[in-house]
């Protein structure tokens, strides 16, 4: 498994005729780490949903590892190597942890489950529990683990830390950083915890009303006094 580059060119999308993302372009190199930032409701989740094929595509192109994704169904994009961990986690509530993981194997041997149990030992302890019995943090781990079992070469993470205790956030970000360091996947992170997102990423894009209004290295964003506050409405220490 090798990471793939993602090239988004003049992408426009939305829900039905309503346009949310307008003319957005960016490139992430193979193995790169991109943070997508912005205030609530500016289109960050819609952007990831568009990359996964869940919105109405209204123009532009999405190329993953040189392959055009626009027009493909979500299942075909997943098979092409796009892994999506949605904000809503979307685990299968009536299945146990292990059964949830088995659904993500995509034909791989069941022994592969040990890989994700290694990353998330908590899931190994809870393997017999049903999805609906898990805490928010465990559900997030499960959603991420199930996606990883499909061996994505581009991983889309939509607010993985939302509503989680700081200690769980630390665990999840440590795992995501470990995945990034392995170089096996390109990671695109949408996150409201700005400091953690900037700490993780090597480049960042700030979105407003579906358009990119700032892009560059996280250090540059932090260096410009007041810029984070202006763009994102939050203060960073």
């Amino acid at each position: 498994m090798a990471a793939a580059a993602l090239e988004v060119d003049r992408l426009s999308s939305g829900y039905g005729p309503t346009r949310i993302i307008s003319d957005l372009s960016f490139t992430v190199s193979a193995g790169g780490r991109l943070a997508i930032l912005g205030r609530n409701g500016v289109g960050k989740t819609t952007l990831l949903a568009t990359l996964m094929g869940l919105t109405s595509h209204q123009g532009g192109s999405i190329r993953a590892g040189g392959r055009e994704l626009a027009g493909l169904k979500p299942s075909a994009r997943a098979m092409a190597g796009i892994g999506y961990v949605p904000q809503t986690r979307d685990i299968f509530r009536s299945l146990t942890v292990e059964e949830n993981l088995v659904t993500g194997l995509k034909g791989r041997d069941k022994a592969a489950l040990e890989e994700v149990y290694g990353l998330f030992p908590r899931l190994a302890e809870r393997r017999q529990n049903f999805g609906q019995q898990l805490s928010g943090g465990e559900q997030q781990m499960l959603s991420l683990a199930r996606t990883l079992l499909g061996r994505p070469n581009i991983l889309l993470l939509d607010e993985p830390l939302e509503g989680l205790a700081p200690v769980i956030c630390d665990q999840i970000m440590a795992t995501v950083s470990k995945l990034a360091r392995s170089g096996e996947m390109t990671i695109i992170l949408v996150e409201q915890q700005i400091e953690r997102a900037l700490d993780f990423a090597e480049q960042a894009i700030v979105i407003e009303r579906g358009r990119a209004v700032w892009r560059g290295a996280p250090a540059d964003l932090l260096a410009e006094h007041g810029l984070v506050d202006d763009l994102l409405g939050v203060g960073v220490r």
Partner: protein
Amino acid sequence: MTGQHTSVEPRLGPPAAVRQLAVPVIVIGLLGAAGYLVFPEDLAFLTRLISITLLVLSLDLVVGYCGVATLGHAAIFGVAAYAVGNACIAGLADPLLLLAVGGLSGLVMGLVSGAIVTRFHGLPQLVLSIAIGQLVGALSNKLSSLTGGSDGLSGITPGRIFGVFGFDMFSRTGYLFSLAVLIVVFIVLTRLVASPFGLLCRGIRDNNLRARMIGAAVYPRLIAMYGVSGVVAGIGGALMAINTGVVGLDSVGFERSAEALVMLVLGGAGSLWGALFGAIVFQLFEHVVSAANPYHWLTLVGLLLVAIVLFAPQGLGPAVASRWRRLRRAGARP
């Protein structure tokens, strides 16, 4: 991914796999033996009960495991029964081959109706399933050269099983044959619903969109499960034709579809054991009550269903399982 974790035992080790095989053999075998010994005069009824149980299990695969709403499943059951009847009349007498004919026609019917029904969701899906059932019913009435019309298809006389065991007028052979088929089918289905394919079907039922996002092609999977369900319903229909020697219009009727759904809800959809017990409890209750009170038995059946829905809305299976777990927890406490 680089992590390795080896300290936790895999969940489905050999003992669990053996349990998966042994429990159905023991439980269904014991229930079957009890039926044989306690109701020796009613073996024909119990044989029919097994056929209908297979229809309910088949229905559970699509309703309980995939979340597909259908009220036309008896069409598959009935078409398979007619196919088996015609094959037998045409000279194919081997009961095992007749079972294969039933399974195959069920597969074809399942794939065709599944391809139509699973394209839609909710009410349109339900209405389509009813429409297919009605269409098959009307065709069965019209094509009397193949179905016998309202008189039914008769003259089905299967040969001996393995060339040795002939079907007798007391239904002993038919009962034991049907019981063996039920056990085999149940074991196969137990393995199927626990397989990655079966789990993904349950995932589709839980969250269709999420299943797509992890790479599952939902529509083909639902059709495939419908096909498997068709095979099971077809085997049930084949047993009905083989054991009774007659296939009537009631085999494909809406009433049978609705009754099968009621049995499933009674036992608990989404559980093979629930489907099994729902079918057994409903049919036994109906049999006993209709014999005891030929005038008001339907009222009593209705009251039973109301009571189940009020006090065990998830069905008898989950209610009993939950009670059992509570008792075990209480027993484990010091």
